[in-house]
């Protein structure tokens, strides 16, 4: 199955195995819907628990790659069989990095939320919603766009 690939390939760029680029975008779409619901429920305990669910989903994507999240499983089972094969495959590392960024944002919101800072839940959900929407609609990985900039602030070596 072409949707599963090792997250770190050392091969030449372009020859590395890839994943269907629509998978991560579908995942981001579901995440965006959940985050919108979090915003609508902000201030209630349900918002915090739902944000926790989103954060745990990101954690799964960080640990095993975005192609192994529950949203991606839904994509493979329900959506992909109805689509034509992808024109080209995508490097799995950028979307996995996006999962890291999502985990950090929503994780901070969850921790602060459980600590009693209710507004942090809404702020984290709003920031993550923007990133997830950009990913789902435009295929834009916000964290990846900022990666070079962040590296310049804190050089690798």
């Amino acid at each position: 199955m072409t949707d599963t690939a090792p997250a770190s390939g050392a091969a030449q760029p372009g020859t590395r195995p890839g994943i269907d680029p629509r998978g991560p975008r579908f995942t981001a779409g579901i995440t965006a819907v959940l985050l919108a619901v979090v915003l609508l429920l902000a201030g209630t305990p349900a918002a915090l628990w739902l944000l926790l669910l989103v954060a745990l989903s990101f954690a799964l994507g960080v640990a095993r790659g975005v192609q192994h999240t529950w949203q991606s499983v839904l994509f493979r089972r329900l959506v992909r069989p109805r689509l034509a094969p992808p024109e080209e495959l995508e490097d799995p590392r950028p979307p996995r990095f996006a999962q890291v960024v999502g985990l950090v944002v929503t994780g901070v919101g969850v921790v602060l939320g459980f600590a009693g800072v209710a507004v942090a839940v809404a702020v984290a959900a709003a920031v993550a919603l923007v990133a997830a929407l950009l990913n789902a609609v435009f295929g834009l990985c916000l964290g990846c766009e900022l990666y070079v900039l962040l590296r310049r602030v804190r050089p690798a070596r």
Partner: protein
Amino acid sequence: MVRVLLVVAIVALTLVAGAWWRSRQGRVRQSAKPDAGRTGRAGDTGHRDKGPRWADAGVDLAPRATFVQFSAEFCGPCRTTSRTLDAVRADTPGVGHVELDVDRYPVLVRQLSVLRAPTVVVLDAHGHEVARMTGAVQPRQAREALDLVPV
């Protein structure tokens, strides 16, 4: 009700920002000529204190133009840009394409003010920057950039 409006506003603004971002992908920007009107010795390439020494970075300049592509490990559009530029290079005599990882060339990245990946710097035969493109590059944009290179 206020919350629904808030969510709608966030979604709308995000879509506008995303459309703007997409419209800028790979757009060709002509670079400022570093020495124009400053020294009056346009043909002098022997003592350039500005600009990187490409040979030191392992970049062999092609006879007509060279695409120097800065890529990163976490970069979605780098792969497609790489493929596009390779195809243009194969089609166009005298054109080269070199891909550099931003993590391995931090000095060049700073020197050239590379902020995003991919950033493609288009060099003329002497290694002077003529134009640059950021984001996913289409073949049409790559050819547009080549047209800016003096023959």
